[in-house]
C-alpha cells in the first residue's frame, strides 16, 4: 500500500489517495475484523488518588464504548460503499480517504495494535525466536505488526508522497 497524492481544499488536504494491492487489501480487511480489541478496562482516567477524578472513570469508559460503537458503524459503511476500491491495474486498487476518515481509521488500527499487545501480555516487543509462539499468538502478533504497517502508510501521507 502506498500514498499517491492528496487532493487540496482550502487550508489543508481534503482527501488522500492510496494504492493498495490485492494481497494488502486482504490483510487490511483481515486486520479490521479484529476490531475492537481493547475493552473498557484498559482505559484509566488517573493513576493518582484524587477522588474527584476517580469519580469520572465510568464516564471515560462510556465515552470509549460509544466511540468504538461509532467506529464500527463507520467501518461497515466505509467498506459497504460500492466502488470504494477502484481497480487501476491487475491486482492494484485505488481508494480515497477524507481527513476525517484518516483519523478514525488510524484510531481503529491503533486499537487493534494496542489490543493485540495487551492480549499478548504487554511484551516489550522484541523479536520472538521461531517456535516460541502458539498459532493463536502468531496471528495476534501478525495483526499487531500489520496494523502498525498500515498506520505508518497513513501517517506518511501527511508528509506528502515519497520518492517514486
Amino acid at each position: 500500500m502506498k500514498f499517491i497524492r492528496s487532493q487540496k481544499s482550502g487550508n489543508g488536504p481534503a482527501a488522500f489517495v492510496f494504492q493498495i494491492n490485492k494481497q494488502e487489501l486482504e490483510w487490511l480487511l483481515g486486520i479490521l475484523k479484529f476490531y475492537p480489541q481493547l475493552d473498557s478496562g484498559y482505559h484509566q482516567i488517573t493513576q493518582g488518588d484524587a477522588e474527584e477524578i476517580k469519580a469520572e472513570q465510568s464516564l471515560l469508559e462510556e465515552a470509549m464504548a460509544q466511540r468504538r460503537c461509532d467506529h464500527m458503524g463507520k467501518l461497515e459503511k466505509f467498506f459497504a460503499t460500492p466502488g470504494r476500491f477502484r481497480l487501476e491495474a491487475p491486482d492494484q486498487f485505488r481508494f480515497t480517504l477524507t481527513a476525517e476518515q484518516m483519523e478514525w481509521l488510524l484510531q481503529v488500527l491503533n486499537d487493534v495494535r494496542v489490543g493485540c499487545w495487551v492480549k499478548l501480555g504487554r511484551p516489550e516487543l522484541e523479536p520472538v525466536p521461531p517456535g516460541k509462539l502458539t498459532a493463536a499468538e502468531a496471528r495476534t502478533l501478525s495483526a499487531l505488526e500489520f496494523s502498525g504497517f498500515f498506520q505508518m502508510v497513513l501517517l506518511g501521507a501527511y508528509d506528502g508522497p515519497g520518492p517514486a
Partner: protein
Amino acid sequence: MDAALAVKFNIFLHFHWPRFSRLAQEADCWYIGGMSQTAAPIAPPKTGKKEKTDPRELRDRGYVVICWNDPVNLMVYVTHVFQIVFGWPRARAERHMMQVHQAGKSALVRETFEKAEHYVHQLQGYGLQATMEREE
C-alpha cells in the same frame, strides 16, 4: 505604596495568583490581590477546625494531563496525536513524544478539570495511555 505601583502589583498577582497562592499557603500566610491598594500580608484566622473545601474551587485548581510511555504506540503516531489533539506544531509534539519515550511520561498541559478530562478522553480515544492528575 503609590497607586500606580499597587495597580501594577495587582495585575501581576492576577496572572501569577495560582503560584503565589500555593507559595503563600506553604508559608502559612495569604497575600491579598484584588484592587485594594494595600498589599500587606494578612494571616488567615486560625479556627482550629479543618476547613471544608468548596468542590467548585477544587475543580478550578490545576489538573495536569500526563501521557505515559508504552512499547506499542508508534512514535510517529504519538506525535501525530499530539498535533491533532492540541493543535501543536510538529516540533513541540515531537519534543513531548521524546519526553514520553525517554523519561517514561510527559506532562502535556495544565488545565481546568473539565478541559483536562476532555483531553484525556481524546488521547485515550487514540489509544494513548493518558491520565489526569491533580497538580501537587
